[in-house]
């Protein structure tokens, strides 16, 4: 079984991103970039499926500028077998990314597509679902556990208030949630080995996709500040304030 894993290059999750003073965009000068945490979980899940003998080949694909080859190499160091870079300038939107991934799927015919539920930059939570629509595949979004048997996949999904289990026919798309697994760290020998793994590059034209824009960012601003309040001395004072000042308990 062949697995395709999509990875995105994003600002490292430890970086506190700020809006530029002129409000034109966020300030990403000299910030550390990394593989999106949910994508890292996707790679880990594919590697575990390979270790279990379910998956025979893992292809890591990323859509973006040439710098995103770094994140493909990270995925290769974690255990993916080869990489595909779809080179696009600027910030392609989820629908365009989904169309490009569909193009890759048509070339590679994977049995399983695993990707993060959302990226921590745009926070859109759209690409997996859109890819499902474009390919007609079933989607197991927000997955916390998957089981593959007899040409189908059972996915336990994180839903409001609990868990939902669905069965999807393969090929299918999985989007990862936090509890699916805990990603490993890449070892130094594997990082060295990853440099020699094959990495192909496609352009949108190769995949017959027109990259279009549907949503324009007009401006960005910091969220409304919340002023710090006061420190109370003890529980008694806290309860008094909540009852008599804030009036939120009686």
């Amino acid at each position, binding site marked *: 079984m062949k697995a395709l894993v999509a990875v995105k290059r994003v600002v490292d999750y430890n970086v506190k991103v700020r809006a530029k003073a002129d409000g034109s965009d966020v300030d990403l000068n000299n910030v550390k970039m990394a593989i999106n945490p949910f994508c890292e979980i996707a790679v880990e899940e594919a590697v575990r499926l390979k270790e279990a003998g379910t998956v025979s080949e893992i292809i890591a694909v990323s859509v973006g500028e040439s710098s995103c080859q770094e994140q493909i190499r990270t995925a290769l160091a974690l255990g993916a077998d080869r990489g595909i870079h779809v080179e696009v300038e600027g910030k392609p939107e989820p629908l365009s990314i989904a169309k490009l991934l569909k193009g890759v799927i048509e070339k590679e015919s994977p049995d399983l597509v695993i990707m993060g539920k959302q990226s921590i930059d*745009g926070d859109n939570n759209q690409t997996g679902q859109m890819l499902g629509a474009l390919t007609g595949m079933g989607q197991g979004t927000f997955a916390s556990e998957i089981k593959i048997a007899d040409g189908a996949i059972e996915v336990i999904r994180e839903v*409001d208030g609990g868990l939902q289990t669905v069965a999807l026919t393969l090929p*299918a798309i999985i989007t990862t949630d936090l509890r699916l697994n805990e990603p490993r760290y890449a070892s130094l020998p594997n990082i060295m080995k990853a440099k020699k793994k094959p990495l192909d590059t496609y352009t949108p034209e190769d995949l017959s996709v027109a990259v279009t824009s549907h*949503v324009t960012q007009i401006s960005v601003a910091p969220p409304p500040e*919340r002023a710090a309040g006061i*420190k*109370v001395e003890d529980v008694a004072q806290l309860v008094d304030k909540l009852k008599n000042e*804030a009036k939120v308990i009686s």
Partner: protein
Amino acid sequence: MKTLVIAEHDNSTLKAATLNAVAAAQAMGGEVDILVAGANCGAVANAAAQVPGVTKVLCADNPAYEHQLAENVSLLIAELGASYDNLLAASTANGKNIMPRAAALLDVGQISDILSVEGADTFKRPIYAGNVIATVQSADPKKVITVRTTAFDAVAAEGGSATIEACASVHDAGVSRFIREEVAKSDRPELTSASVVISGGRGMQNGDNFSLLEGIADKLNAAIGASRAAVDAGFVPNDYQVGQTGKIVAPDLYIAVGISGAIQHLAGMKDSKVIVAINKDEDAPIFQVADYGLVADLFEALPELEAAI
């Protein structure tokens, strides 16, 4: 302008999140209809017809929609979408699952998690875990939108009298099948609609200690939440998680216990009216957003608090 709001429901009751989505639809102006897609969901359609300001309720009552599988419902929404300018749903697990699939079927983008309507095609939405608010403009003729429920005050649940129209369209994509659902049974209010929320973080040390929050939650009729750190550490299940990647809450009173206040947690609760933080580290970032901060050992403070309220 016509807007279709996708109802959030469980085939028997209309969920409050729908009322927030209707509020966003009304902020966009024009006619508002509601789609109830489910099975044996007549009671939900009746409830939706009571929502003031709603013109028409479309009721697609068919076994194919019973569990609101995205593969099936998105086909229905894409079909009905032909006669609407805007398609809206609350940004719930269901809304997030279904709407992008419908958007792609219509070959349009989606605007996720809007915080406000700035104009017919312009919206505000959080990016980078809520550290930045972006103003975005849609170029699509048809807009597919999910709504952050805490950003829009719910419309009234009763007082309207919309017409109910049966929708006979059946779409079964045949690629997915519902197996089961394990919904946590609780007498407590739901995290996203509770007026009081008490959450524990890594400082709780283990899952058993969450029982210290229960007595207080009982007295305040509060929902219990957790930080991502507490979920990652395995103290409590993921559906407790408050934060950018979990649930977004905005109760009247939010009590953060043993939570340091990571950015991603703050993104999920900082719109609460009153925030209380209990933490033994006086430099914890949570105190920067707390109205009332108590620097104390939570294992002493919680029993005291329970006794005092």
